């Protein structure tokens, strides 16, 4: 068995992932409660009301910059970290083949997925790369989106200064609109990310590899050499997966469509009035839809917390077992 089955991230990476998720969720909840305030008035109140919500958003923005600077520094000077960059770089030939084969697989014209598409489900390291083409895409897209959101967020931090610097108000409005539109795009991506990693049949409801570091994963010592398989076959599908995946999938689709429509219907921001096509914040279905989308984010937050709870339980269990073993060993 290799660490690919359940764990492929170090402790720093898993901790960073959790902190990044918490910070990004805070940015989303504060940002979207402003953007979709008609539909998410209750969230705006929870996030500090009209006088506190943007202060919280800016504090979380600084948090994101701190986390990013830490991560970049760590990737550059951390032991063995620079090699990770190679794993993220696209392998054009294989990644493209994997994508084409995935399309064929969905259409029933291929028997199995390409190795470069196998992100989960118990393959060994000599069979699949560290990151599938989907995994690489997620990292690239989130990295680019977060970078652009940070840059545009810093630029619109002080709008009077920005207007003075560019000698025009249009620059401030352009960056404001860009920041808002990119936020909506990222919201859709995060919803998909939550669904992708929260509802995989083998790991539902959370993929523990995101929370438990590979050195803490069971069986990594290869002590059970006689065991055939990678361990994936030991997992069982939870009975609730079937209805949960349908419910989660529907919520994600409704959420994505609703925030897209909401960004168009909420005239003026972030889409100019001239491009609006009707509707409005009083639309009940839109209000429900956008709330469903935000509930998907809450689900993501919940899963992140739950993953860390499972990690804490697991680590406690490992410590207890080690103590028991030490005690019995000393008794002998």
């Amino acid at each position, binding site marked *: 068995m290799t660490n690919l089955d359940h764990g492929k991230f170090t402790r720093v990476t898993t901790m960073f992932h959790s902190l990044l998720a918490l910070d990004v969720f805070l940015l989303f909840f504060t940002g979207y409660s402003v953007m979709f*305030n008609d539909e998410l008035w209750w969230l705006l109140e929870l996030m500090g009301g009209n006088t506190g919500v943007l202060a919280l958003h800016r504090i979380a923005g600084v948090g994101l910059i701190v986390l990013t600077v830490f991560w970049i520094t760590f990737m550059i000077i951390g032991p063995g970290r620079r090699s990770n960059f190679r794993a993220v770089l696209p392998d054009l030939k294989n990644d493209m083949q994997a994508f084409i084969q995935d399309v064929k697989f969905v259409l029933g014209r291929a028997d199995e997925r390409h190795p470069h598409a196998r992100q989960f489900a118990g393959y060994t390291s000599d069979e699949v790369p560290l990151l599938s083409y989907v995994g690489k895409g997620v990292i690239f897209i989130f990295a680019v989106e977060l970078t652009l959101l940070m840059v545009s967020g810093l630029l619109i931090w002080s709008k009077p200064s920005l207007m003075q610097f560019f000698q025009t*108000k249009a620059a*401030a409005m352009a960056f404001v609109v860009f920041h808002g539109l990119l936020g909506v795009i990222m919201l859709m991506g995060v919803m998909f990310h939550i669904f992708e990693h929260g509802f995989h049949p083998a790991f539902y409801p959370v993929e523990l590899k995101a929370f438990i570091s590979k050195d803490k994963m069971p069986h990594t010592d290869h002590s059970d050499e006689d065991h055939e398989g990678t361990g994936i076959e030991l997992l069982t599908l939870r009975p609730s997966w079937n209805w949960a995946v349908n419910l989660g999938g529907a919520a994600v689709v409704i959420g994505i469509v609703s925030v897209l429509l909401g960004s168009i219907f909420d005239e003026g*921001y972030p889409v100019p009035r001239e491009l609006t096509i009707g509707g409005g914040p009083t639309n009940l279905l839109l209000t429900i839809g956008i709330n469903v989308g935000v509930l998907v984010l809450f689900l993501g937050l919940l899963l992140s917390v739950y993953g860390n709870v499972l990690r804490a339980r697991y680590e406690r269990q490992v410590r207890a077992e080690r103590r028991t073993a030490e005690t019995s060993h000393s008794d002998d």
Partner: protein
Amino acid sequence: MSTDQNSMQREQMSQGVMSVGEGTRIFPDVEACIDCGGCVVACKRTWDVPPEEQRISISTMFEGQEAEKPQLNSNSGRALNQGEFPGETSFPMQCYHCEDAPCVSVCPVDSLQKNDDGFVEVVEDLCVGCQYCLSACPFGAPQFPESDDGAEAVLGGGGIMDKCTMCEERQHVGKGPACAEECATDAILVGDAGDIADELDKRDAAPAFNKEAMEIIFGADEARAFDL
């Protein structure tokens, strides 16, 4: 000038405040403005506006300079619309309660609302201090007096936006906006769009804003009443 001529002149010119109430518009006659600051004082005195904030301010450009064409020296509005150098020109800048208000359009939290009676109002309980209205308003009307205070100064927020109300409360009791009532040269015109257009015609003055800005302030239909 004879007494009869003076009398005729008075009949031709109206007071700055021509009508108040629903549908009232406010608009500057830049040729009449002499940058005396009377409107600023009237506004501050009426509404106890603090020193660091100005709901109305006068922007004077090309101070001490003459227009390139002498015949346009006394008509900055016409000069600007013809693309000619206007010479010294003073603009009383305030919220014009635009028909097609960009601030209302960009406000993400609907704190800025264009009411049925034509006033653009700030709902303080909704304003998050994002300053998008500041970016959108072509006339620099939005003010953020709390932006240098406490947490706002540290975090770069704007606090709650404040701007000219066109003295809505005064208008409800039949009075004109304090700035216009106080203006010694009647440079701030208050009335419906037709009144303002007629008054500018009487004064042989032209609006100092271009067609695009006039359509924002008055809407495309009413902007046609002006000589653009």
